[in-house]
């Protein structure tokens, strides 16, 4: 029998706010020495009370709006009760039945097709402390305790590991566009759980779902889902049944391993957080947040195709990172006619520069206008393509403007036919062998002769003119 996979995803993303969710401590915990970003509130000392970080609420609403969610007028926090050493209060302040955002969706591209993934809810909660296990015992770092965390839950709309991967990628792009999360999975700023079940293709009813935890990278999400689909179909094919369990992904062995069964599922005893009054989101407040929405990648991509006529394959790469897209747009603004040429330079030379040095767009030593200027110099024939690459390299090192480099180093393309004719004449004179070969019909030596002419001009010659003049010279002398 053929099975269809039904997948739902839960993503936790740390919210980039200056302070923690319920106290004034800095939320920038990663680089700080252990237990230095703490206070009575996030250490859960007796008598302390939480206060809502408004910026985290707004970031979550912004995310919900970007995912086309509804923002209900009433929302509240709840206590989720469970005991674990990384949870200092013995309960997590989370949201249970009235999340900040409900009922949205995200469109993703999978194998050239658009798929709509429903977003069930986005809610806000607090992160736990960080445990480090050593042979001598376990250590707790409370710097992370109370860092705002949003949870984004999809409907069971995902049908394959590739879709899951595409969803995660698109979601992370959006989170980064909004500036609400770093989306960095390797550093734990974004965490993911997948619920996977199978059903016979064409069936209506859902099968028994298995929750997969410990997915620490995009790759492990894909691998774990593939593995789990395989495992479950094997079970079903051999007449077995899938049990409702929680599995963990074992990165080393590349398999899912049993963690706990449903009978041991915890009863979190949710109840409304009495220390925090409910939040009322007025339409005006929601509108104010909506106005902060930037143009999202999907819209940008469509606009680039429509307005700039950029090839759709190129567009996806240009919009994948917000700073890159903004850099590109600013460069295009400086030279609107050169949109595709600028895109080519971005995707080629600029991306190579970034990836070679593992740099981000923000670290580029040149401005978008400077890139546009370089592209214009190539476009108008002042320099040729090869020289353009050299000039860009130098710009990246020195930050100097393209025109200034070209001027200082005399790199302007030689298009002066009189000057070039002399050079051609001497090339023809100095290479009688190849010239003879050419005349005997070996047209491929033309490239060699062009190369010699280019070398004589330190590569500055306009290749097209060199080629024309050379052909002319060879023809002339033949006559």
């Amino acid at each position, binding site marked *: 029998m053929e099975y269809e996979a039904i997948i739902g995803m839960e993503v936790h993303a740390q919210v980039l706010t200056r302070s923690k969710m319920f106290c004034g401590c800095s939320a920038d915990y990663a680089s700080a020495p252990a237990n230095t970003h703490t206070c*009575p509130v996030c*250490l*859960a*000392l*007796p*008598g*302390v*009370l*939480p*206060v*809502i970080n408004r910026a985290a609420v707004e970031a979550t609403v912004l995310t919900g709006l970007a995912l086309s969610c509804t923002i209900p007028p009433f929302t509240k926090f709840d*206590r989720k*009760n469970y*005991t674990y*050493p990384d949870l*200092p*209060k*013995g*309960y997590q302040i989370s949201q249970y039945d009235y999340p900040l955002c409900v009922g949205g969706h995200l469109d993703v591209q999978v194998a050239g097709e658009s798929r709509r993934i429903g977003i069930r809810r986005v809610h806000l909660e607090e992160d736990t402390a960080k445990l480090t296990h050593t042979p001598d015992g*376990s250590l*707790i770092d409370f710097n992370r305790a109370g860092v705002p965390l949003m949870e984004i839950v999809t409907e069971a709309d995902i049908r394959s590991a590739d879709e899951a991967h595409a969803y995660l990628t698109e979601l992370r792009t959006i989170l980064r566009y909004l500036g609400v999360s770093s989306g960095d999975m390797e550093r734990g700023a974004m965490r993911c759980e997948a619920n996977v079940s199978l059903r016979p293709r064409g069936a209506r009813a859902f099968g028994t779902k298995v929750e997969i935890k410990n997915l620490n990278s995009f790759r492990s999400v894909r691998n774990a889902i593939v593995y789990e689909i395989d495992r479950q179909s094997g079970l079903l094919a051999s007449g077995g049944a899938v049990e409702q369990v929680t599995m963990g992904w074992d990165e080393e062995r590349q398999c899912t391993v049993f963690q706990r069964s449903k009978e041991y599922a915890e*009863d979190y*005893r*949710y*109840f409304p957080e*009495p*220390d*925090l*009054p409910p939040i009322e989101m007025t339409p005006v407040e929601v509108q104010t947040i909506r106005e902060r929405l930037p143009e999202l990648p999907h819209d940008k991509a469509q606009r680039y195709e429509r307005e700039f006529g950029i090839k759709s394959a190129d567009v996806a790469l240009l919009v994948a990172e917000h700073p890159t897209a903004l850099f590109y747009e600013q460069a295009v603004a400086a030279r609107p006619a050169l949109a595709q040429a600028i895109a080519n330079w971005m995707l080629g030379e600029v991306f190579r520069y970034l990836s070679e040095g593992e740099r981000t767009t923000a670290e580029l030593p040149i401005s978008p206008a400077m890139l546009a200027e370089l592209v214009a110099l190539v476009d108008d024939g002042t320099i040729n393509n090869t020289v353009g690459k050299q000039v860009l390299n130098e710009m990246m090192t020195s930050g100097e403007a393209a025109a200034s480099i070209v001027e200082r180093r005399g790199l302007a393309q030689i298009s002066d036919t009189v000057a070039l004719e002399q050079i051609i004449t001497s090339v023809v004179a100095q290479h009688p062998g190849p010239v003879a070969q050419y005349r005997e019909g070996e047209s491929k030596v033309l490239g060699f002769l062009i190369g010699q002419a280019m070398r004589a001009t330190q590569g500055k010659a306009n290749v097209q003119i060199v080629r024309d003049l050379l052909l002319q010279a060879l023809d002339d002398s033949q006559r």
Partner: protein
Amino acid sequence: MNLHDLTIHQAQELLASDAVTSVSLTEALLARIAAVDTDLHAYLHVASEQALAQAQEADERRARGACGALLGIPLAIKDVICTRGLETTAGSRILAGFRPVYDATVIAKLREAGAIILGKTNTDEFAMGSSTENSGYDTTRNPWDRDRVPGGSSGGSAAAVAASMCLGALGSDTGGSIRQPAAYCGVVGLKPTYGRVSRYGLIAFASSLDQIGPIVKDVTDAALLLQAIVGHDPQDATSVEMPAPNYAAALGQGVAGMRLGVPREYMVDGMAAGVRQAVEAALDVWRELGADIVQVSMPHAEYALPAYYLIAPAEASANLARFDGVRYGYSHPDTDDIWDAFRRTRAVGFGDEVKRRIMLGTYALSAGYYDAYYLKAQKVRTLIKRDYDEALQQCDALIAPTTPNIAFRIGELIDDPLQMYLEDIFTLALNLAGVCGISIPCGLSEGMPVGLQVQGRAFDEATILRVAYAYEQATDWHMLRPQV
């Protein structure tokens, strides 16, 4: 008159006229504590040195021209309120030796006002109880009769005030824990409206019900101490941004023409005859002062107790989860692993009543029971609020006994928790409604004090103080002091 017998406002006059210094006042109270508290056990910790240093500083501030209602006034603080550097245990073994690194907002306000903190007073463990018998350390004796309880949970504060071991005290009230011990000890206790006083630094019992308030010798002192602790606190999201009036200024306006309601449901058959007589006599006093006494009904009053004993333990079950022996307090020395450490620390650190309520609350919140217990209780709470709203629309304030009986004997109810819970039957609906109430002495029965409550609208402490003050001015009950 002995210095320790003074009220806050009397002492303030003497301080202001340089007739006494804060140091001499503080020394007198420390001497009084040394003399009588060995028998009464009102204090868990006395901070003599720090108190004298604070008194010295208060005198210096006064010499530099400072003044204020609480400048140089020695007070006692219930041990559920965090005091920086001063041991705070909430009456629990699980917090033995715990010294907070921060001051509760009310403590910061008192320090700013120049008040002296004499020490921390006994309480039922985590404020769960009506007698201080649930304290992990000691049972406080009622200064009127040492075989009787002082009430609870703020029994230490009430006994300290009644036995003149402080000029005033702070207590906390979740279901009557200020008003009931005030009644049992013959002093004044006020539970402010929920949100009027910051809870930041109050070790939580039931977060939606807890409120800090004054326990003092008379209504004027209640106004002064309340004034010092009210106000919005950015660290308490449930505290309100609403300016407080000048409470002392409102005291003397009288009750002529006011409507005072007596809830029919609060004059029950089971109450002691002496209590009933005292309350009825008090109603006559207000009548003579020109108030209109009317009967009102609180139809859901009988459901307050069961609703309270679902909501309060539910919240407590979460609030007490943080006490695990990892970061502070008692930690069991002999454990196999972290889970064993949690279990043993809590098994040894918590007393029986606390465990009972954690279990009650955990049960009420459990899957499958939530709707039947916790949710139902919240609905009842809404109905009780409505009862109060309707009654207080018809009346300016409500009058009710504080407790059905006088203070019971130590050990009398310890094995009958339900009967002990019933001692709070007249007080806890007020917490569910979130409004304010004050208990004042209104007579003696069998030689023991009887208290009555004036209950008022949300954030209308001024009116209940005014009604109480009018009664106090017309009677002498507040002047009675136990022979210690």
